[in-house]
């Protein structure tokens, strides 16, 4: 019944979704401990969390390459445990590891992949041409993948994932391991796909990536969802408008943190710095100095998802 009532625009629905790995000895390992979420057509949906939060496991369940062990998961209204191939025919997947054939030319990588979907040669040829152009690899079509840089390989993997004209593009850590410039090129291409109305799902442990690309995201920690919403909503809900970052000389930080109590809305001491959450960062800095504290450095910035994560879990995203 719930299927009939649900909006057709919901492409993915998870209820109490769980994944448990049996271990040879000892207790089973729970990677995903019962999560709920919905992904709607045309949106960019993100899973933000540190390594080991269960993001990739969730992505593999969505990609129908890892059986669901608890709860419910539906893509296009279909069950991944029984309809995997039918669902995968409508997905594009960019895995964490590129899994490209290094010995093959860039164009041929798209070709053999397209054949798996039963696409005719002529269609693949035409699409490969266009997709390579789209990911700015038009001039690398005839080159062996081996000779491409990390960023080019990632873009080639994105082009490959688009060969079947997927309704949802799944990206697991799309820019991990890339240098800043290469990351921006990937973001730019993903942003263009978003503009074209492609539904994107991505995992990341970079808060700037999540903020730039995602319409909506869930913050994951230890196999559970800690919070859900649009990036700006989450920041409004869990952080103040601004953050004052203070560094003190070694050994003085602890005392300083105690003296800061009461400034702004919340004080968060970290190993290397103290964060003061306040609506007005400059005012908080003035008050800090007013209390006779002299930080080595002081920086006022806008709150980010990093702060949301810190607030929700007590830890930073990238350790």
């Amino acid at each position, binding site marked *: 019944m719930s299927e009939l009532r649900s909006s057709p625009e919901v492409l993915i629905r998870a209820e109490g979704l769980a994944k448990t*790995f049996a271990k040879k000895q000892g207790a089973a390992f729970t990677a995903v401990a019962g999560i709920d979420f919905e992904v709607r057509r045309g949106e960019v949906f993100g899973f933000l969390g540190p390594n080991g939060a269960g993001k990739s496991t969730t992505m*593999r369940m969505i*990609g129908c*390459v*890892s*059986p669901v062990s608890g709860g419910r998961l539906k893509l296009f209204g279909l069950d991944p445990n029984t309809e*995997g*191939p*039918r669902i*995968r*025919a*409508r*997905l594009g*997947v960019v*895995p964490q*590891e*590129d*899994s*490209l*054939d*290094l*010995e093959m030319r860039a164009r*041929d990588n798209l*070709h*053999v*992949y397209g*054949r*798996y*979907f*039963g*696409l*005719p040669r002529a*269609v693949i040829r*035409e*699409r490969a041409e*266009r*997709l390579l152009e*789209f990911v700015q690899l038009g001039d690398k079509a005839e080159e062996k993948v081996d000779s491409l840089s990390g960023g080019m390989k990632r873009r080639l993997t994105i082009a*490959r*994932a*688009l060969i*079947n*004209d997927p309704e949802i593009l799944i990206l697991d850590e799309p820019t991990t391991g890339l240098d800043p410039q290469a990351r921006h090129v990937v973001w730019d291409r993903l942003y*263009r*796909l978003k*503009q*074209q*109305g*492609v539904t994107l799902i991505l995992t990341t442990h970079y808060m700037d990536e999540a903020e730039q690309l995602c319409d909506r995201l869930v913050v994951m920690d230890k196999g559970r969802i800690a919070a859900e919403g649009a990036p700006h909503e989450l920041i409004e809900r869990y952080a103040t408008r601004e953050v004052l970052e203070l560094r003190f000389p070694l050994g003085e930080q602890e005392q300083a943190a105690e003296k800061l109590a009461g400034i702004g809305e919340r004080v968060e001491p970290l190993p290397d710095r103290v964060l003061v959450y306040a609506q007005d960062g400059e005012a908080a800095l003035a008050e800090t100095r007013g209390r006779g504290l002299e930080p080595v450095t002081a920086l006022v910035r806008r709150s980010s998802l990093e702060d949301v994560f810190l607030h929700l879990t007590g830890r930073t995203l990238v350790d």
Partner: protein
Amino acid sequence: MSAQTLTPDTAATERSRRVPGGLVLSWRQFRFWLTLFRRTWRGTVLSAILGPVMYLTAMGVGIGTLINQNHDLPGGVGYLSFIAPGVLAATAMQNGMGEGSFTVLGSLKWNGNYWAAVNTPQRPEDVLLGTAMQGLMRILGLSVVFFASMLGFGTVHSAWGLLALPVALLTGAVFLFAMMAFSVTLNTDQGLNAAFRFVMTPLFLFSGTFFPWQQLPGWMQPIAFATPLWHGVVLSRELTLGTVDAGSALIHVGYLLAALAVAYGVARRNFRRRLYLSR
């Protein structure tokens, strides 16, 4: 870049959404391997022809002339005629194990093409069958070349001998699937080398390929009977020498088919576990 850029031939997309049956999916996996094969076939063909010719020359013409002919060998045939059908079956085993080893491990560890494949409508069982198809193609091709050399050396004494070809293919298939079942569980190639050294080589030497199994010590004979290769060797030999009888032939074929079914079943289970679960 306009929106139209990524809205290509919708008819092809429509068709690609309808997922066909397992055989078509396996065929697509096979096509992937054919594409690769087109790059490397020259080397394969050369070694395929040189190998058996060197083997038969060295064994038959070299060692064979040192062996007391017409005396110890069942059927009173020359040594070359005795070993040639055995080597036919044994090389089919070797090729089967070879095809089921680095092909699979490389697809998991180095090329990643298996991980790419399961993100498409391909299922682990399609990946298994499609890869096996190319292995079988190679086993058959190499067996045909070897059989042609046997004909050239005059070692096929009966029209039944032609059936030694499907027997070689069947023998190779057993070891192909068994090896694939094993390889798909590995993370390094150490296990493969162990399999070659401690399984393939002893089987090659002690399954009645180079001397009559009756000469094995009594305690070793049941072990020989239990190995699929022994059944392949003996049946292949009975066929090319024309000494085959229906009863024992049925037992040999039945045993090989049963072994194939077990190997396929285990391979299918292991492929599912690896490609769907553990990552």
